[in-house]
């Protein structure tokens, strides 16, 4: 995950004002918490859960820990018009109906409730994930073919 991607996620979390946002892509994971202070954690796989015992707002100075949460202040204002579409099941995310086909939706596109946004494959079954609100797709947060866990944010839709 690049720094730019993380920056975008932080922006997203700050815009939406949600309490916490966690995104896992393969062995990378970002967790952002927005209660007063937004904490960012970005650690490689073997240490992926390294900071979990430490409440982000009170993280100590771990002596030789390889990565330390970076804290940034935010007002954490809620943005009710940005809707996060989250994975309702664990599985593999696909942005298009078949390899090589165009994606179901692109960033900037306007969608209506019921519009298929992506597929999550779970136990060989293809589960279509539909939009629940009308709006404009503002961000696509997972790469096609990547695994997603339950509750993982897939899209940000600006309700209109």
């Amino acid at each position, binding site marked *: 995950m690049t720094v730019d991607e993380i920056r975008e996620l932080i922006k997203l979390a700050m815009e939406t004002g949600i309490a916490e946002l*966690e995104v*896992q892509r393969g*062995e990378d994971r970002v967790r952002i918490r927005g209660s007063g202070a937004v904490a960012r954690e970005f650690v490689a*796989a*073997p240490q*992926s*859960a*390294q900071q*979990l*015992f430490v*409440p982000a707002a009170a993280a100590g100075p771990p002596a030789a820990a390889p990565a330390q949460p970076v804290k940034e202040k935010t007002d954490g204002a809620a943005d009710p018009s940005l809707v996060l579409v989250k994975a309702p*099941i*664990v*599985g*593999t995310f696909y942005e298009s109906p078949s390899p090589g086909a165009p994606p179901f939706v692109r960033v900037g596109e306007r969608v209506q409730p019921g519009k298929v946004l992506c597929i999550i494959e*779970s*136990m060989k079954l293809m589960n279509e994930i539909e939009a629940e609100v009308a709006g404009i797709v503002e961000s696509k947060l997972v790469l096609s073919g990547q*695994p*997603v*866990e*339950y*509750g*993982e944010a897939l899209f940000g839709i600006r309700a209109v």
Partner: protein
Amino acid sequence: MASGRFKKILIANRGEIAVRVISACKELGIETVAVYSEADRYSSHVRFADQAICIGPAKSARSYLDIPSIISAAEIANVDAIHPGYGFLSENAGFAEVCETSGLAFIGPKPDVIRLMGVKEQARAFMRDMGVPVLPGSTGVLQSPEEALEVAGQIGYPVILKASAGGGGRGMRVVREAADLAPLFVQAQQEAGAAFSSADVYLEKFIAVPRHIEFQVLADEFGSVEILGERECSIQRRHQKLVEEAPSPAMNDALRAEIAGVLQKALAAARYTNAGTVEFLMDEDGKLYFIEVNARVQVEHPVTELVTGIDIVKSQIRIAQGERLRSILRGPVTLRGHAIECRINAENPETFAPSPGRITGFHVPGSIGVRVDTWAYTDCVIPPYYDSLVAKLVVHGSDRAEAIRRMRRALDMFIIEGIHTSIPLHKRILDHPDFQEGRLDTNFISRLLAPPAKAETLA
């Protein structure tokens, strides 16, 4: 699929047993994948696993009991095997089958064996046919109150009605005389139906003052079965064990060897594999009667580990990898010293009301002979959604007297602040003369908790 070294295992469980399995995997050089509900995001098993996947919301039915989510997580993490722990899906034959068809090794017995052991009166019939002593009782499911009356008349009162698919005391009724049988039969059926979606009940002789004694089993996939001695688990409240120990103060070498011999034969015939526990009741004369088989690792397995020196969870994994028991155990099973376990629960020690919440201070006892299995830590939150087990405090001493004194001081040195725990109750149990002298039976806790003889009525 159940052979070849595993590279990666998914643990389909939470809490201390998930941490226990992660510990075993780390010692075997196997990578681990934790699954967790949204309520367990900050649990130790998430931290200590190499990888962690959120599989659903807090409610177990949509996370730890949700087979598609768990299998999906196993697929995206590309694991070789699944360890089910205890509870949740551990004795679900359907889950074991789905694992197999998904090309995943299920670390436990085969689905048909789980199924056989899961239907209690079938298991009982099988064991009786194999020469294992069972309580006199009905030969199968009772069809009517009339049939129950006839069987009870042959056996003699008191008798106990039990749900075929049951456990944990639900669907159970003690019947002390014939006149009570019919209404209690209906009650037991209704409760069984509600709890287990099967209203089948059976009946057997009721032992008024029984000890609960169980034998730990390991069996490989080549027909070898080893019995790792017994545990005494008579200290129970409403069929929930509170204190377990090994060996049982009521056991002797001859009886232990006799039962072990019979069980080896019976379980080999059942093609039993992996770990399991065979539960017995012991009557007032010291005779043992088979009750049921728990086809999984058990909460109280550490007491057996301490007296035998055998790592049961690592053995489970190695058996599932297709290793032979001979190479895992490397010698005969021997018992050394005495071990006791206290299940430290997040509950009020007097009312037994659950006490979820944030643990503000957590300090485990250490030093000689003390083992703690826990997922808790300072500032963790005990969620209200799951069982109340916070930690298993286990001690090992050169004999029972030393183990009791060691447990007593370990309880003194176990600090849990912010929530209620059962530690004060455990101290009362340990201090009781009956416990200290090994006079145990499953009514011990009722007696301990009984109000003084003449309870005053509040105005």
